[in-house]
Each structure stands twice: as structure tokens, then as C-alpha cells.
């Protein structure tokens, strides 16, 4: 095929100007995502609760409860103790069903068993799993332990030195 030379400004790369940007179509380019944010431990839950009241695009903020370490092999999908911010118990299966984005917040390695239970479900549904390690106030060795424990389950792992990264990340992800 003969190369056709662009004839109008807007039909060639020169259209990358501020003036031409005015003609970009104004229609939305994405549907609202279903985001599920899991706080794996008490510290993570506290950090998460600081921002759950902000206006989000329907993100679900969920806390893993229970007193002790969770044994993933002995915990079925809906045995995971999980609650919404108002204290209502919720089922992991229902939360993961229809989720587009899953983010796990961790500030200790005591509850990593829960990560495995969540990851199993997410993996079944081929959903990307992001792990955010909240390093504020933790020793380097604790951070290393959390990172190593989460590594098998997360397709992206971020270590944030301050908790203000939680809203920054969730805003960026349109949660």
C-alpha cells in the first residue's frame, strides 16, 4: 500500500499540542472498578480506618479479624474472619467475586496466613494482587520478614515508609 501522507494537522503527530488536546473526546474511558482493600492485621486496620471515610469509588475496606495466626491450610474461603468498617461480618467469596483490584495492607507478619487464603481466591479468578507493607515505625528486619512472607502472593509489592501512601495509591488506582 502506498503511504498516504497526513493532510490535516490532527491527522499527524503534530497534533500533540495543547490546542489540539481540546478536541479529545470527553467520554469516559473506563467503568468503575471494584476494589477490595484488606487490612491483614490490627496496625494495618488502624491505618486503613484513617481514610475509609474519604470519598472513594465504591471500594470495600475489609479487616481480617481473629485473635491468632491464621493457618491457611485449615481455613476455607469463608472461614476467614472478615469484617466491614461497621463491624458487619462479610464473606471472602462474595468479596472476591466481581473484584477487579485487590490490595492487601500489612504492618506485621503475624497474619500472613490470611494473605495466602486471599491469594488463593484471587488467583482462582486471575485478579492482580498488590501488597502494601506499612513500614512506619517498624524495624528493618520486621519489614524484611513481611516482604518475604508476602512475596509469593503479591504481583506487586510496595514498601511505604509512611501511611499517607495508602490514600495516594488508592486514589491513583481509582479505588
Amino acid at each position, binding site marked *: 500500500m502506498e503511504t498516504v501522507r497526513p493532510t490535516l494537522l490532527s491527522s*499527524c*503527530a503534530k497534533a*500533540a499540542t495543547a490546542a489540539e488536546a481540546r478536541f479529545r473526546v470527553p467520554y469516559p474511558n473506563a467503568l468503575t472498578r471494584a476494589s477490595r482493600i484488606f487490612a491483614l492485621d490490627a496496625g494495618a486496620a488502624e491505618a486503613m480506618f484513617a481514610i475509609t471515610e474519604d470519598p472513594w469509588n465504591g471500594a470495600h475496606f475489609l479487616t481480617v479479624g481473629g485473635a491468632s495466626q491464621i493457618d491457611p491450610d485449615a481455613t476455607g474461603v469463608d472461614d476467614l474472619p472478615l469484617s466491614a468498617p461497621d463491624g458487619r461480618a462479610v464473606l471472602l467469596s462474595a468479596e472476591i467475586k466481581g473484584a477487579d483490584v485487590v490490595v492487601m495492607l500489612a504492618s506485621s507478619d503475624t497474619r500472613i496466613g490470611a494473605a495466602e487464603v486471599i491469594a488463593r481466591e484471587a488467583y482462582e479468578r486471575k485478579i492482580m494482587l498488590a501488597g502494601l507493607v506499612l513500614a512506619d515505625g517498624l524495624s528493618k528486619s520486621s519489614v524484611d520478614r513481611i516482604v*518475604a512472607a508476602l512475596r509469593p502472593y503479591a*504481583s506487586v509489592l510496595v514498601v511505604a515508609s509512611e501511611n499517607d501512601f495508602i490514600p*495516594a495509591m488508592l486514589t*491513583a*488506582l481509582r479505588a
Partner: protein
Amino acid sequence: MLRKEVNDLLTQTDNGTAMGAMFRSYWIPALLASELPEDDCPPVRVKLLGERLIAFRDSKGRYGLMDEFCAHRGVSLWFGRNEEGGLRCPYHGWKYDHTGQCVEVPSEPEESGFCGKIKLKGYPLIKVGDVLWTHMGDKETRPPEPTWEFATVPAEQTFTSKRWQECNWLQAMEGGIDSSHVSFLHSGSLNSDPLFKGAKGNKYNQADKKPVFEVSESDGGLYIGARRMAEEGHYYWRITPWIMPSFTMVPPRGDHPMHGHFWVPIDDENCWAWSFDYHPTRALTTEERQAMVDGYGVHNKYVPGSFRPLQNKDNDYLMDRDAQRRGDTYSGIWGIAMQDASLQESMGPIVDRTKENLVSTDNGIIMARHRLRKAAVALRDKGEMPPGRVPEHQLVRSAARVLPPEENFADAMKDDLRVRTGVKQTSV
């Protein structure tokens, strides 16, 4: 997604803006040293951070960078006569020294001391490596001179180029920390580019197109680790350091020279993409240096006599659909640098980040923006100096290594990620 006010904060660098103040707290590349090759050579117009300046080298070899326009009636000093220790305006003969101080007003009696009252805004200009650097901020908070390894190794080990990029600095810089595009956009070039091909690591890059990312903060910025499968359950790690505000290094491949970039705002809709290549322990070979001059690797070809890329928006970047179809290049655009630049310029001069749909693998970019915003606000509101100004932050390297699965890259590769004089880069 980024809110409009944050996008404005990060992308605007004129005098008086928060991000502008942040850029003004660093030594930034201003010109290639080769642009002012000898004493009394022609002056060069320079626009940086939205300020129009003139650079020159006086009769004694002193470099000057100052307001482009004569204080008398506003003539561009590019027309000036660079002679006898200063730059003289050709209109009425006012003369300035390398600091911008007016040293002669021929119409006024010398004894009047009138010229002492006239001073153009001037900035220091120093040569470190192949680059002339300037600091456009307050003298009181001037940082130590730059210590980046590419600029401090012997001249035969390093090569630097710059090209005009027709978009805001941030979207260009974000390309440098966007490790997930390499498996797509640059996939063709891994096989063919003389400065990339043949490395063992390339094979992992091509075999595993779904890298897993780990982002962690460093004192000066970030480490972005991309992990791909290697043999026997091991991981092939590629670590990209980002140092504030806009320095990045590409993880190395084989024994090829290491490369990286600086992105420096010209104004809000244009930036300089600085690209360097160096080897920490050996001279560049004649072939390597020639390949860099010829525009391979992170460098590019030019419109003759300019710093504008030969492939540019006026010629649709010489799009080659046949090469795209054959897979020689993934996007149809020749050369790694212009593969990036063509796409980044296509976003428009300042991309509207309220429209983007980021995903988890974009977390390096999300974190970099977050740190930039915080640093710019801390400087604006509390006068806190931002990271990246001191040698400890600047003496970093990128690295690539195969590690057992349980190893933390930040620990296992701690030494690999630091400059070690006389020790070569860690690479696969």
C-alpha cells in the same frame, strides 16, 4: 489517576512554583561541555525551568549563565561580542562578565561607577564530566557539586548526549521508571541494538513478559525491582534506581556500558532528555562510542546541526509499518530513545492524568509522584531541602542479578546498587 491540582503541582516548574523551587535546589545539567568548546566561543541560548538565559565562556575559560537580555534596552545577548573577559551587547556596547555583572557602560563616565548598579541575574555554571551544570537556587543552600558516577569516571569511559523532547518533563521521566513497558515497546531492540544485544538477561526478559514488581524507598528516591523467572526456580532481578528529582538508570545487560537519564524541564511543555552511557571500569570501545554517536541504545539521531531528533513529530517519527509487522520493532519506530519519546510526545505537551487508568504494576510511578509531591510541599511550606542533593544519594548504580527466591534484593544486592570505585557493574 492524579488529581488536577497535583498534576499541576508536579508539572509546573517556572519560577515561583513549588516544583520549580525543588528543581532549583539541585545542580542540574544545563549544556554539554562541547557546546562551549573554547574560550571566547559563540554564546549559546539556553532555556531552563522557563527562564531564557545565555551561556558563554569568557577569555579566561570562565563559564557564565545569565539572563539572555541586555539590561539597557532588552537586546538578546546572543548577538553579543564575546571578547576580553566578557560579553558585550552589540547595540550600545554594554558589557557583562561571567556572573552577569555589568562591567562597562561606554556612554557613562567610568568614574561615575554607573555600571556597578547594573547586574543581570546570573547562575553558576560548572563543568563536571562532559556536562556543564547549573544551580538556579539560593546560594545559601547550594548543594555540593554533582558526584554522579557517569560524570566522574575518566573521559574515555563515558559518553553523554542530549535531545529535545517536546513534552513535559514528568511524562518523559515516568517512562524511565516504567519497567513494564520494556517487554513490549523495546522487545525488538533487545535482539538487534548493538548496545543491548547478546546479554543473557535478555532471554529472561523475553521469556517472562509478566514481571513482578517490588518498589521500595531509598534515601534519595526509589528502587524499582522487576523480577522475572530464571532457571531452577531462581529469580532474575532488574533494579532501577530513581533519584529525585529526575535521575534514573537502566539496569545493565551483560558487559554493555550502563546507561541512564536526566530529565530537565526547558519549560512546562518541553524538556531535555539527557542520556548517558558509561562503563565503571574500562574505556568504551571504538565500536561502542560510534554506536552511541550513531544513535543506538538510549541515544538518537539528530536533525543535522541541532539537538532535535531526526525522527520527530513533523515526520511522524518515520513510522515504518513494515518493520512493525515483521516485528523488527514493536511500534514501528526505530531506536529505543525515539520509541519512548514518540509515545510520550503523543500524550500531548502535559498529559491529563485525571484520565489515566493506572494498575498495580504502575506502583513505581505512583510512588515517585507521591514522593515528589511531598518533597515539593515540604520545601515550599517548611523549607526542608529535598532528597537527592548529596553524594550519598547520588552514588548509586542500577544492577541485574539472578537470586534464590527467598532473597530480598535490597539486602542481597546492597553493594551492587552502590558505586564502588574500580569494581564493575553487577549484570547478567
